[in-house]
């Protein structure tokens, strides 16, 4: 195993595993990332990312703040497109199709790749209208179909029992944890294949966090999940695979157990044992 090492002016040793990071328990790659760079204007924030994210598994992205994990997850549904002067270069394939190729329909892409944000961001509408939003803009008018989808999504997000009697009430009246599960339900309603979660529990209390984590476990039956977290216990609890990011590079990627118990890289070990970051 060869590892290219370099030293930054700050004295931190960084490196990028030259191994194309196929995890030991090889599964079908749902998302394939090759030599992906990302820039905000002049500043390069992601450097040659290579990852193979498998289908129907939970992949956690960990690393110190500013390491690029959020930028990376937002690249998978091209959410960064709405930031002026931000651009991605390289290849991110979903089911073998490069989403950064010209002519990609980002609207269609984002229907297939749902996203849940760090801070819950329900629309100031009713619970029902929040969940139905994605379907409505997609052209679903049939009342029955909408009702079914709303119920199914809320059930999948483990929120149905709590809100089934007040679907027409404002979503803003829900608690923080409920709002976040509503946002998950909203993302599920358009029936995505992939669910991106950007620190979905960082603003929640421990009980609400537990609920979200349980939910993630259940959701991976049907969805490919990529979750960004700064909480290593959380990564260890919910994920099958873990990628460790630092200074815009993937330092190590593999089975979560291995990353936490027996990491290959020194830097990974330092991070997961809390020696820096």
């Amino acid at each position, binding site marked *: 195993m060869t590892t290219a090492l370099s030293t930054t002016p700050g004295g931190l040793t960084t490196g990028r595993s030259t191994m194309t990071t196929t995890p030991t328990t090889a599964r079908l790659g749902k998302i394939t990332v090759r030599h992906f760079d990302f820039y905000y204007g002049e500043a390069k924030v992601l450097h040659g990312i290579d990852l193979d994210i498998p289908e129907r598994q939970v992949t956690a992205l960990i690393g110190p703040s500013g390491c690029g994990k959020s930028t990376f997850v937002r690249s998978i*549904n091209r*959410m960064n497109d*709405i930031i002026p002067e931000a651009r991605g270069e390289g290849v991110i394939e979903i089911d073998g199709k490069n989403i950064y190729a010209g002519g990609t329909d980002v609207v269609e892409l*984002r229907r297939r790749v749902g996203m849940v944000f760090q801070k819950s*961001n329900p*629309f100031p509408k009713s619970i029902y209208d929040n969940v139905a939003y*994605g379907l409505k*803009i997609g052209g679903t008018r049939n009342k029955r179909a909408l009702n079914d989808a709303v119920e199914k999504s809320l059930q999948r997000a483990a929120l149905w029992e709590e809100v089934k009697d007040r679907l027409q009430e404002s979503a803003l009246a829900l608690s923080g944890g409920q709002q976040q599960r509503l946002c998950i339900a909203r*993302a599920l309603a358009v029936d995505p294949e992939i669910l991106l979660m950007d620190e979905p529990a960082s603003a929640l209390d421990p009980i609400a966090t537990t609920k979200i984590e349980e939910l993630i476990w259940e959701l991976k039956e049907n969805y490919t999940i990529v979750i960004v977290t700064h909480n290593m216990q959380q990564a260890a609890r919910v994920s099958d695979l873990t990628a460790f990011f630092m200074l815009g590079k993937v330092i190590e990627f593999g089975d979560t157990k291995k990353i936490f118990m027996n990491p290959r890289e020194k830097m990974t070990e330092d991070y997961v044992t809390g020696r820096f970051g």
Partner: protein
Amino acid sequence: MGMFSNRRRSSDDGSFRVVTGAFAALVLLAVAGIGFELSRQSMLSIRRFGMSFWTGTTWDPVSGVFGALPFIWGTLYSSILALLIATPIALGIAIFISELSPRFLRQPLSYLTELLAAIPSIVYGLWGIFVLVPIVRKLELSAPDAIRKLALFKGPPLGVGMGTAALILAVMVIPFTSSVAREILKNVPTAQREAAYALGATRWEAIKVAIGYGKSGIIGSIMLGFGRALGETMAVTMVIGNNPQVTASLFAPQYTMAAVIANEFTEAADDLYLNALVEIGLVLFIITIAINALSRLLIWSMEKRSSRPMAIVPLLEEQPAQ
């Protein structure tokens, strides 16, 4: 000693507070004073005519009969027409500047559109008389007969009239609505737009989400424009034709409340006449106060959600440097 100096400071603080507060109270007094003075000055007319003042259509100072309906009609009709024209344009501007425009264009465009608010009413009027009226007259003359037969376009093609007034009013109102609406949109959290995009929204659909989030403030901005239109005087009186009549025709010369006060106040020879004019002013005051109060409350309710207070003076608003 510490205690002593503390007490001195707080008593000094107290008088400072009272003195500056007294000046601040003058602002409250000004609003109350306007209401009081206008009521006092219009008693004669209120007592004499009661409600018939607001339903009568005869305005005859010579025989002392005053019915203000045509003025109310003219004011409401011109303002509503102006609103219909101005609102889509003003919101379009707000959306363009806050959501679509390249960053380097934002500030110049904000400044230019707000320049419309800095141009004095009298200059609008002058431009109206000598530039807009001839253009409108030409348009009216070239309108086919079939259209001229419609109630909306009846009357001689004078150029001056309701339509021209509504056009000028619309232009004057645009900067007020657009600058407030722009601030409202700027304060909508990015997370709202991101939520929409993440669900596969197009750009326009995401903008609609932002508008939905700022709905009450945007309604407030529209009402603010409406309040402006109701009280606008000089430009309107110069192009509307000043003829009190209740008609739907856009070609017909009509009259507004503010315009009749401007034109007849110094001619009002007897007390009843003057009181009748002041009563029109009183009602204009009450309507605009109500509309402004409501629009402010709506805009403030949006402001509370965001940290940044909004300026009332459009020319002072700055885009925060990024």
